[in-house]
């Protein structure tokens, strides 16, 4: 099939690519643009490891077509730090050991960033339900929730 030309914005940079009509945004990010931060854990929207933010909406990039990114803004984990300054969530995930193998971490960081953007001081339950779309098999979630709570305090300047 003929490719679809797409021009979009990824992590603040203008990006253009050619993709197949049935190619997902996740495949574009990983295989065409070399942004391998988003991971494929299931390919069916059930694990959240491929989470990105599309025009301020948290989505699974495996359930978005590459062509749908035309004219929109995509944020991935690779865009969270600014120069050598980590985002507070990145820093707190390290300090709390909120990751062990780390394959789910990019997805969790993006989901937590979206959660805190919309709810700067979430309760534990709001964090747990807000992150329920991201599966983790190593940590049992305890330290992830604590890292998000800690980051929320820092970001609120509390």
């Amino acid at each position, binding site marked *: 099939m003929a490719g679809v030309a797409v021009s979009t914005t990824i992590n603040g940079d203008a990006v253009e690519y050619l993709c197949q009509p049935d190619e997902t945004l996740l495949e574009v990010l990983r295989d065409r643009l070399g942004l391998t931060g988003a991971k494929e854990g299931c390919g069916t929207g059930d694990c959240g490891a491929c989470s990105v933010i599309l025009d301020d909406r948290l989505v699974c990039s495996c359930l978005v077509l590459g062509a749908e990114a035309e004219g929109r803004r995509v944020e991935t984990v690779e865009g969270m730090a600014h120069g050598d300054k980590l985002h507070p969530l990145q820093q707190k995930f*390290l300090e709390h050991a909120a*990751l*062990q193998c*780390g394959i789910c971490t990019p997805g969790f960081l993006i989901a937590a960033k979206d959660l805190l953007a919309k709810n700067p001081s979430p309760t534990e339950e709001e*964090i747990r339900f807000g992150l329920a779309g991201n599966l983790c098999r190593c940590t*049992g979630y305890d330290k992830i929730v604590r890292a998000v709570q800690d980051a929320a305090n820092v970001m609120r300047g509390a």
Partner: protein
Amino acid sequence: MNFDPRYSARNFTAVGTRPVRPDGIDKVTGRARYGADFNMAGQLVGRILRSPHAHARIRKIDTSKAEKLPGVKAVITAADLPDFTNGDAAMYDILDNCMARKKALYDGHAVAAVAAIDARTARQALKLIEVDYEVLAHVTDVDEAMKHGAPLINDAVFTEGLDEKPVKPSNVTKRSQFGHGDVHAGFGHADFVVERSFRTEQTHQGYIEPHACVASANADGTADLWVCTQGHFVYRQHCAQLLGMDASKLRVTSSEIGGGFGGKTHVWAEPVALALSRKAGRPVKLVMTRDEVFRASGPTSATSIDVRIGARKDGTITAAEATLRYSCGPYAGSWAEVGAMTAFACYKLENVKTVGYEVLVNRPKTAAYRAPSAPMAAFAVESAIDELAKQVGMDPVDFRIKNAAQEGTRSSYGPVYGPIGIGPTLEAVKNHPHMKAPLGKNQGRGMACGFWFNFGGQTCTDLNIGMDGSVSLAVGTIDVGGSRASLSLIAAEELGIAYEHVKAVVADTSSLGYNDMTDGSRGTFSTSMATISAARNAIRTLRERAAQMWDISVDDVAWEHGHAVAKGEKHGNLGKLSLKEIAAASGTTGGPIAGHSELVADGAGVSFATHICDIEVDPETGATRVLRYTVVQDAGKAVHPTYVEGQYQGGAAQGIGWALNEEYIYGKDGRLQNPGFLDYRIPVCSDLPMIDTQILEIPNPNHPYGVRGVGETSIVPPLAAIANALSNAAGVRMTHIPMSPPRVLAALEAAREG
């Protein structure tokens, strides 16, 4: 210099602290490279054709149409993987599992594979491969498979370990037995006896990263493999043997690994990728879909277990007996054997007997899953123990304290125990505030004990000291969950320098000697042993160089807190030489300074745990919710306490998922019905409370710092802890795992009518 592994008490400076891990930045910025994140120039996409049948003879495979499809560069079947296993049955099973040679033995068994220029072409090529199957009768249930007349998976299998040699083939590959004393007599003295049968469904390790590799085989017999694995040296050995290559000609580089839990201790598609690459003459990238991971990697066993335990009025157990039937998939395994060994391991028993049966079924080849075989056996035993305590009229914790194994106890699997932590974990639980917290309506509390052996094994470590005095540590055991942090702490501790000056990396197979798999909770235990040994060797060299710089005898030079110190008044004026200063002069005093260690780490200390769990059950729907969870486990010495807590919490969470919702569901057609994360339900964030942990430290006498393995025990108690909590909440004794809502509701209804 031989290395003395014995424990000696010391107060630590680096070990026991909680620094940020050295490999963390890449993992939070998305730069860390996992199995599927690696690409090579000119690589092809590999895809595998899998059997849709549970059991079928492969009469013929026609790949001609697929080979003609434009963009297809190689198509292989078992014919492209000649048998180099020369009589090694275990290796032959691995070969046959990678690509079926005569029969497709389960839904998802690989029968052919293609390498093509892109995924779309590869998918189309798979559809053009015609396989002529002769569908055979199948059996997927562990009890059904043992019955007379059940379809035979392998008619060359005769049960081992029976008193008389069997004449007819069977689905039972082996019978194993453990124990001591006379259980018959023991039951004679019992005032109370509990006898129950339990079943647990098959579960998967559930790692979020599907298996992935890039294989690049060259015409000259050399090859490279980039792969997510728990043991790149073992993968090299198996892949090289299956492909008829010299092991040292195959370099295996381990990527970061996205979880393994035992499921990445075994090659699945890697030999297929190498064979495709060899035939196509180009690198091949082969990434499993989630559907393939569930259907065709290595879940743990489904089990059927009978337990019988008797005790006197005073609460002393007089006899304990268990028969354990474990499914192994279509290939022989020793899973029931390990179950039989661990079943009663927590207890001091006069009369105990356990018998294990390995059972073949048309399901994927069973592999290890975190303390393999132990959670199922503990579910049966700890449930029966709980019921027996109630009949005797004793508190479940006190009943366990009375019968807990101690130092000197003969274990149920044979050897006498050294110092062990089951007693202290039970005492800690008895005094834990969780045990006294109030419970509400429809709520209940349960507790259970767990054990795992832990191993040592072959380990190599290189410790190189840079000219600037910073240290690079190359280890051979895969770091799944943060061991690079603990190993850096250990190197810093032994050398007496700051943690920040140590950088630990996992070396590939061409830069270190052979290392065993990261399994059996041996990662930190054995690699820390080799790291301490390497550091001590480096310190010897540092002292020699300092002696040379001072021009005195090396015997007068001691190593204290990262410095060479001249001993004796005659050297009073010499002051100290820091590691940095010695390293800076290394060019003139004999060259680069390093410490190496190649050893077999033995004497891995067992790790015991006791868990407490509160649940609430909805009487109208049977839904069970975990309200509070506490893990108390013996770590010997917690090198990096945060990551030890992480192992406790992660193991408990997997146990909770296994107890409540996770199971392989096979239809009557022998096909797996839920190969995906939607219907194979692992716990989500909102399912679990915070998981509280308490680390006990009963030093392991066979490790310099007293370290024990901690990675696996935590998955053992949850199944029984939750079952006992449900019994406490609603008076129902659940005997079938997972305790899903339909099963709990049916039990509640039966209890209401009963």
